């Protein structure tokens, strides 16, 4: 940790390896379902890779909804300060 700008964790090579490892783990969790069959409560949640697809799509939907609502809801962070410091 002597040279901060070149911490091993932020080197591009490390990040590439982290991504490869991450993708390998992702594939493994889906394949694990072949060994440990999820019985599922409602049928559909027992399909291969249901958790993976559902989790990914749920996050995608939430980020997009947040992004869409942000258009209406986001204000400059001084919004209330300017308003309330008058009094």
């Amino acid at each position, binding site marked *: 940790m002597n040279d901060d700008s070149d911490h091993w964790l932020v080197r591009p090579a490390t990040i590439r390896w982290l991504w490869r490892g991450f993708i390998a783990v992702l594939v493994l969790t889906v394949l694990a379902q072949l060994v440990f069959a999820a019985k599922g409560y409602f049928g559909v949640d027992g399909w291969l890779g249901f958790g*993976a697809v559902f*989790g990914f799509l749920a996050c995608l939907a939430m980020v997009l909804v947040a992004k869409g609502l942000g258009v209406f809801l986001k204000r400059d962070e001084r919004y209330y300060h300017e308003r309330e410091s008058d009094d």
Partner: protein
Amino acid sequence: MIESLPPALILLAAALLIAPLRGHWRTAVILAAPLATLWAIWQVPDGVVATITFLDYQIEPLEGSPLRRLFATIFALMVFTGGLYAFRQARAVELAAAYAYAAGAIGVCFAGDLITMFLYWELMALFSTLVVWSGGTPAARAAGIRYAIMHLLGGVILKVGIEGVVVHTGSIDIQPMLATNFDTWMILTGILINAAAPPVSAWLADAYPEASPTGSVFLSAFTTKTAVLALILLFPGEPVLIWVGLFMVMYGIIYALLENDARRILAYSIVNQVGFMVCAVGIGTQLALNGAAAHAFAHIIYKALLFMSAGVVIYRTGKSKCTDLGGLFRTMPVTAACGIIGALAISGFPLTSGFTTKTMISQAAADESLMTVYLLLAAASAGVFLHAGIKFPWFVFFQKDSGLRPKDAPWNMAVAMGLFAALCILIGVFPEVFYRFLPYAVEYEPYKAGKVVFYLQLLLFSGLAFFLLLPLMRRTLTISLDSDWLWRVLLFRAAAGIQAGLSAAGAALQARRVAGFAALRSRAEYHFGSGPAAGKRMGVFSRTWSIGTTALWIAILLIAYVLVYVI
């Protein structure tokens, strides 16, 4: 009787001592009082321990049950760890207020009747406001006032409901009810305001992040979780709570995703987590209520841990915005590691406390064949990982290099974080030990291979989504409007508009009055005036008449009078 010493009074006495004491004596009180309280909590037997007759009511200030002891235990643990975290950094007044606030929470745990519950409820409102004010900034002062107004209003609504129930049923007992009439709806509303339910969720994310770094650790624990306990005691199986809870879950995620301030992200995720518990209370089965209680217990630990981790960052850097932070893992490894453990626990990663408690709630939904609820909870679990599990540690400790090189946590803060991080993992690894303290017997088995695989897929692919969607989540220097906009801006504008309208109307009336008087005056001068204002001519009534003319007129008038009289 030593057996019936109310645990809340120990903490209240400690709060009174903390303010005047100094040095080691104060430290001793701060650390010993929560432990003494913990001991007293476990001396409270099941059932009503003490009764006092007040007016015509049987007040039951102390009633024990496994559920009540469970909540009181985690509150006492929270006070101890929070005290350890804060005692060298926080101001004495903040610590005293926090201890009194916690005393209120523990008092609610053991309240056997609605009147006692209400008294402790208000104690919490008062002293939590002081904790917010201890933030010391103008923003903290303003947020504290808004916080106090909201909680006093909630208290009034709760009180209206309690009075109604007392008048109509004659009973002040705390017993399960459903929201079927005005009284019970008022009680439910009063409790839900404290749970940060919609449409007033905004008070939480408004006030908590304005407190001091140590104050927000205390704030994160008590108010919302006593509300959850009150819901379990009073409204188990109330169907409306399922949907209120699901709304809170989604609200917390969406707002946390939009947020830039690290502590505000955590505040929104409190609403999200409490939503899980409220939903579980709505499901209302034994497994669901166990899940709500267990999740509240686990949640207090990991949420406090997250606030502690954020608190250290703010204490060391003075910054709390994601846009200002990043890359802190280099010099703050302990804080980063504890933050990550808290983040994994809140996401419900296997081997952490979140997994062994939150999946109970999902299981309860599945057992009741509530497929929509189950899938929404699963989606929310993915969302929690997205907004708190990765977002918080990523933007604070990794992300870009902000150039900040702060020191790591002071020793007491590090020990406090270590304690709670260990608990997060212990409850995750040895759930059966923890399950023994739940209100109902547990036959639930969290670690089934299929379920673990399902949640690993769910969470890890959420992680993938996070990193792929990072460009969409670039932090901006913004806040997000919430329902509090209605009273902070719209109501304010309406009041300003009404004021402007009234003063315009007043000015118009004033102008009319002035013009009216001027007209009256000119008429008067026309008839009576003799000065220059009346012009060249004299007013009719101010002319001087000669004696002869006057005598003639008097004679004519007298004749006219006599004629009229005779006729």
